[in-house]
């Protein structure tokens, strides 16, 4: 245990393990709803905000509201006020996997010094342009490369990365279909 106690990746694994135990017998409390709102600015430029969410049987607010600007680049004949929506998927995946690595490393007693993920999504835009009906709209594939400096063997680091994928919400959301309902109110 000493090894585990003396390492610190800044993740409160104890709290997570306790939550896991507590929620085993209370599936209702484990139901979370995450929310965001998107407002159209002009052209393909939008502003999204994220503030409140619910879970553990209550409503909650983040400490501060976050704002995300999305647009499309000039090569798309747009104003490029912000990143494209599909790039936000890379942001979500990279941050989710990296957070997972820190948590798993803490739990396994591995001290991290640096973690850097580089993500690349291969996208054939003929799909969204309607230029070829055989081409899908979304990514054809996403490649994530991790550069990790840690007190661990290569195999242990690979196992960290594999485990973080196994437990990642965004990895699951991207690799498995999700039922999406869009309605007009």
């Amino acid at each position: 245990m000493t090894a585990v106690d003396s390492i610190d990746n800044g993740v409160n694994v104890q709290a997570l393990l306790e939550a896991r135990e507590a929620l085993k017998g209370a599936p209702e409390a484990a139901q979370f709803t995450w929310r965001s709102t998107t407002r159209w600015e002009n052209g393909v430029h939008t502003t999204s905000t994220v503030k409140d969410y619910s879970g553990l049987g209550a409503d909650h607010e983040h400490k501060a509201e976050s704002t995300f600007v999305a647009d499309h680049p000039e090569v798309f004949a747009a104003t490029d006020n912000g990143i494209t929506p599909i790039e936000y998927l890379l942001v979500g995946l990279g941050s989710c996997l990296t957070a997972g690595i820190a948590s798993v490393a803490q739990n396994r007693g591995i001290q991290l010094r640096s973690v850097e993920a580089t993500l690349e999504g291969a996208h054939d835009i003929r799909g969204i342009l309607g230029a070829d009906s055989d081409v899908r709209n979304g990514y054809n594939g996403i490649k994530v490369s991790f550069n990790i400096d840690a007190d661990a063997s290569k195999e242990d680091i690979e196992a960290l990365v594999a485990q973080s994928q196994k437990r990642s919400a965004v990895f699951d959301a991207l690799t498995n279909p999700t039922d999406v309902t869009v309605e007009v109110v």
Partner: protein
Amino acid sequence: MAASHFLSERSVDHVVLERGEVANSWRRERWDSLRLLTPNWQSRLPGHHYGGPDPDGYMTMPEVVGFIDRFAALTGAPVRTGTTVTSVRRTDDGYRVTTDQGELACRTVVIASGACNRPAVPALSEAVPDEVVQLTPFDYRNPGRLPDGGVLVVGASATGVQLAAEIQRSGRPVTLSAGEHVRMPRVYRGRDVLWWMDAAGVWDQRYDEVPDLTRARSLASPQLVGTRERATLDLNALTELGVELVGRASMVRDGELLFSGGLRNVIRLADLKLDRLLTAFDEWALESEVEADLKAPERFEPTRVPASTRLRLDLRGGAIRTIVWATGFRPDYSWLDVPVVDTKGRLDHDGGVVAGPGLYALGLPVLRRRKSTFIHGIEDDARDVIAHLDGYLRS
């Protein structure tokens, strides 16, 4: 019958109830080509072991039935065959057991009805279009009974890899949907991998020493097959046969089956886990006396993942005529009228001592040891559980 052996040894009056015949699951619930994946020398029951000429071979189903029949004769177990238990209820001083042949009253009950009574088929099977034939390992006998044309095998544990291989060899192109799985070579450093599991003490690991018991109890069976050639049947072997690998089946939408894009990761997890297991074997061997007799340590080629895997499969186009759900098995406790089964259908027990006084269980995954669901695992478990039962009767 292993429980019966130890009950007799302790002179505890008992009967064994069996709805079919002795070795019923091996007679009725297995496919034609199946051989045990455990080697003959490992087939041991209390006071009974394989004595034939081929200790490293793997028994066919008729051979297993013969083996268990001989055990039944040897123990003289008081088996009442053709007796189906339809209800077990708690009474003031024990249990009332209702069967299709009448009622019995007893102080204690040992639930040894098996861990694999029903195929576990995921709910998404209900959305599969009617034109596709759906089978479970209980319906499957041999590839000749399948329609000609493509076959999707879902599940890459022992059952899934074995069926995928034989169906592919029959000329029906197989797509294999793989979730998390356990990769193993048949032979490592010249010995059966299950020799290592046994010798290195992995199989004897106790349920109260396993770090994550819930996970250990739901672990899939290893990708192993018993053949004369002692061939390895991992995903690389299947790829060489021409089987197409896809990710975990996740949903049917508009007549298409959608697969997870996470195949690469489940494969990496299995490769890493195999390497850790082999490292543990090597470390054990260094400390043991057998090191000198073993071949040099080796590591196996990483599992080859197709550059791009199929994410969707049209079930209406005729390319897939059959789906085989090799997605595991579960026990059936529909006859147990005692509140000891959780919402997921699992029996609530601590090392075979069920949460109802005088109620016991045997033959469930990691019941008391990692080997609990294997034929050779029953002896130690039955000895411990029956000792507890005897203590309970005397108290």
